């Protein structure tokens, strides 16, 4: 039986039960206005609901009773005995009919007409005999019950605690043994908990109908208001979704439907002129795909005007003209999700009030979902919302980084690979890094670095390849992978969420809190542009022999540019204070070096990133907005019209990219020679071995040796000394040839090969 009908029956029977007392009381005192009102409300509700379900007999009865009671309420009629009896008879009949529908029995064949007549008759001496048949058959056992939602929530959190306790028990059993019997017993308990959890999770599920049922009315009202004709089709209402999720999607869905009618579907005459049917179609459908629910909202209206969006983006300074010219059509349409851009020519009462699609996207992303748009000019728009089934318990992978444990939602994980073993190649590019995992080139983010811990161990741990909802893919380097766990995730406090790195908190096996990482947040924080990355991955050709790696980046102007990767020494972030116009051109101070700054017309207002380019003798800095990728390139270059910083334009994937002219740049800036900064090494003063024997070796390895420095690339200390603060790397020397134990990573001071190796490595980092 239809869920809604079941609900109607349960509700009506509940009201009848509750009304029993009121009916008796009203019979005793027909002048009691409060009772009258109560009964009136009941028949009124039943009339409305039964009309909805097409139950004509109930509708007719309740309608007649409502009319009679209304005339009593307005004082036209007295609530005499005849009337009271007639109303009671009608209510009894309604009860019988409802019960028959509920149990699936044949409806009573007794005629309703006499009851209705009795209600309408004003001077009837007595009601017809209405001996109730209700008592004859036992009431059907209720098949549904209603529960307060907070009880369900409490059950859910009880189960969550149970899962935690089970995890703890599992750990104890692993550590302390307990024998195969205990293990078998634990397995059984574990299975029961899993079943229980699933059942309780299902109690929180609701059919998405609950969300869709409001749409017909919404569409009707909106079309009346706009004078448009819209036919709504709804599919997949039986898809089930977590109750909380349904509430979270309600606003975004409503917003998209409003937009579709207000802006998408054209007025009838415009549609006729365009050769379309006068009535626009709006199709809303839901379906389950794995552990996600997809909701599509498609209209056959005029589509999103991508060029208008671009114009608006230009006007608001969101895009530069140059970048706009390169924007593919799909990305133009996606501008609709940018704040402050709306194609509505004027604000109407429906939409275009400034709260736009950016809010829709933010709301959907907040619950771990994504929203996509696909538009064809003149043929319509299709929005796709993809949201997870539930928010509360998620399978996750726990990892270690920077001495701490973190969890990563398993849904975002593509694969896990060990760095050692040849499957992975890591290429460092100054501050940025790329990992090649089975011929996939992925931007690499070091988790320890992202959380502000020591990032030096990133090249010998594990890589977790992440594919967060919202597209894009990147590799996250962690120190170690611990375990797969089912975690009960709770939202984190605002101060924790403000970091942008975490999606929630949870408790681990050992009862210690664990932070759940937010894969898109970490990528954003590391400055990766994931949307682009995905496109690049598909389009990037396999590296061929004649190709050299180029660093693809977006200049401050928004233009895509690239430069030979081998010329890039490193990528640095510089503050505006470090940039000044001196001796006729912009220069930037990095460490102790002053470099000419290219790619930047004026001192920026915020910190920017710069590429440090080197020809071996001179260094220059080139400002950029973001690093896009490293691409192998060996294709043709269309030369620039005039010599300048750009030597020509090339096609990478489907995009035009400007190539920097390194020869021109270095010729311009070579000017007065700037010493390439040598890496700094700190040696303890007054140590004869260090000063006389070690120093020449270090200097010949290209270091500048000092006895103290605020920042050093390398510090060398004896086996007991304290390393100075600010050293990027510390090298310990011991006098004994053999290490003192397993944790001893020092080098014997006469081990020349190891020393030179360490020095070379330190220089590479610098």
């Amino acid at each position: 039986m239809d869920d809604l009908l079941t609900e109607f029956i349960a509700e009506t029977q509940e009201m009848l039960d509750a009304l029993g007392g009121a009916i008796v009381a009203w019979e005793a005192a027909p002048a009691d206005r409060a009772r009258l009102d109560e009964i009136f409300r009941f028949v009124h509700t039943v009339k409305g609901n039964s009309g909805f379900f097409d139950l004509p007999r109930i509708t007719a009865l309740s309608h007649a009773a409502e009319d009679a009671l209304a005339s009593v309420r307005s004082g036209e009629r007295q609530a005499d005995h005849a009337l009271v009896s007639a109303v009671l008879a009608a209510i009894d009949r309604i009860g019988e009919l409802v019960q028959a529908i509920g149990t699936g029995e044949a409806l009573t064949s007794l005629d309703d007409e006499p009851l209705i007549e009795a209600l309408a008759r004003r001077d009837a001496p007595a009601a017809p005999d209405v001996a109730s048949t209700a008592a004859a058959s036992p009431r059907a056992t209720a098949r549904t019950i209603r529960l307060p939602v907070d009880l369900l929530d409490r059950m859910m959190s009880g189960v969550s605690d149970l899962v935690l306790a089970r995890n703890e028990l599992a750990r104890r059993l692993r550590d302390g043994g307990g024998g195969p019997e205990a293990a078998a017993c634990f397995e059984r308990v574990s299975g029961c908990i899993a079943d229980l959890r699933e059942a309780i999770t299902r109690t929180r599920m609701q059919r998405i109908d609950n969300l869709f049922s409001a749409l017909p009315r919404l569409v009707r009202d909106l079309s009346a208001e706009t004078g448009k004709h819209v036919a709504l089709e709804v599919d997949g209402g039986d898809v089930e979704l977590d109750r909380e999720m349904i509430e979270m999607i309600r606003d975004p869905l409503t917003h998209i439907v409003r937009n579709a009618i207000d802006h998408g579907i054209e007025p009838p005459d415009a549609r006729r002129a365009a050769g379309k049917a006068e009535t626009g179609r709006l199709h809303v459908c839901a379906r389950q795909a794995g552990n996600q629910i997809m909701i599509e909202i498609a209209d056959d209206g005029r589509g999103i005007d991508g060029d208008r969006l671009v114009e608006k983006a230009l006007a608001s300074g969101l895009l530069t003209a140059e970048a706009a010219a390169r924007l593919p059509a799909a990305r133009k349409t996606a501008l609709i999700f940018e704040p402050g851009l709306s194609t509505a020519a004027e604000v109407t009462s429906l939409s275009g009030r400034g709260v736009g699609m950016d809010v829709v996207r933010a709301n959907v992303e907040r619950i771990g979902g994504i929203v996509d748009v696909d538009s064809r000019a003149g043929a319509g728009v299709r929005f796709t919302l993809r949201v997870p089934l539930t928010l509360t318990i998620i399978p996750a992978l726990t990892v270690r980084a920077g001495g701490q444990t973190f969890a990563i939602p398993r849904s975002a994980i593509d694969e896990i690979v060990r760095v050692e073993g040849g499957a992975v190649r890591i290429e460092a590019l100054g501050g940025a890094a790329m990992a090649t995992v089975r011929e996939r080139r992925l931007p690499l983010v070091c988790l320890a670095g992202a959380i502000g811990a020591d990032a030096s161990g990133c090249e010998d741990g594990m890589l977790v390849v992440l594919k967060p909802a919202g597209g894009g893919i990147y590799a996250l380097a962690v120190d170690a992978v611990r375990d797969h766990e089912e975690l009960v995730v709770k939202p984190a406090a605002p101060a924790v969420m403000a970091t942008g790195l975490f999606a929630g908190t949870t408790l681990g096996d050992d009862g210690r809190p664990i932070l759940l990482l937010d894969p898109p947040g970490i990528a954003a924080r590391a400055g990766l542009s994931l949307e682009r990355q995905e496109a690049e991955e598909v389009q990037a050709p396999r590296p061929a022999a004649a190709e050299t790696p180029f660093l693809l980046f977006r200049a401050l102007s928004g233009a895509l540019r690239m430069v030979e990767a081998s010329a890039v020494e490193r990528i640095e972030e510089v503050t505006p204070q470090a940039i000044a116009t001196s001796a006729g051109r912009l220069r930037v101070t990095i460490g102790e070096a002053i470099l000419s700054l290219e790619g930047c017309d004026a001192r920026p207002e915020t910190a920017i990133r710069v590429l440090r380019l080197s020809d071996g003798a001179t260094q220059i800095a080139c400002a950029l907005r973001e690093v896009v990728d490293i691409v192998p390139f060996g294709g043709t270059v269309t030369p620039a019209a005039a010599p300048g910083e750009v030597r020509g334009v090339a096609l990478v994937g489907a995009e035009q990219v400007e190539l920097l002219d390194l020869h021109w740049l270095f010729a311009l800036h070579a000017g007065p020679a700037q010493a390439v900064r040598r890496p700094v090494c700190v040696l303890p003063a007054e140590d004869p071995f260090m000063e006389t024997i070690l120093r020449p070796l270090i200097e010949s390895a290209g270091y500048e040796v000092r006895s103290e420095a605020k920042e050093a690339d390398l510090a060398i200390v004896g086996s007991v000394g304290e390393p100075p603060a600010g050293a990027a790397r510390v090298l310990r020397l011991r006098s004994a040839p053999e290490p003192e134990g397993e944790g001893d990573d020092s080098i014997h001071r006469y081990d020349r090969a190891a020393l030179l190796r360490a020095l070379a490595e330190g220089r590479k980092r610098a």
Partner: protein
Amino acid sequence: MSLVLVVTLAGQRVALPSAEVESVVEIEAVTPVPRTAPHVAGLAALRSRVVTVIDCRAALGFGATEKPRDAVVAVIDGHPYALLVDKVEDVVESGDVRPLAASAGPGWSRAARGTVEAEGALMLLLDVAALVAGAATEAA
């Protein structure tokens, strides 16, 4: 008359509205939260709940609490917090809240809601939500 919880914080006896305090606990292990505001000491587990640990000294701008132990649990906007204090004393009855006659001084004025008289002494009544928000709200 209302009830306040008297605690020692940064060497001073101060009052917290006891209606906003859920319980008083001892914090054992704190899991740090990287890249968060300095007054967020980290996360701690209380039974099966994860609470966000707020270092009240740091929230007032007095530097970090050393060897944190005593904490006051309060729920704000649905999120449970444990507020680290030097020492928890007792719940006592207090007089009405009076506005501050003079500035409470640097740091304290961020969180002071007024003064109350309790156990014959005048003390600052601190706002729990302001402590949780930390120094950031002051700057805004």
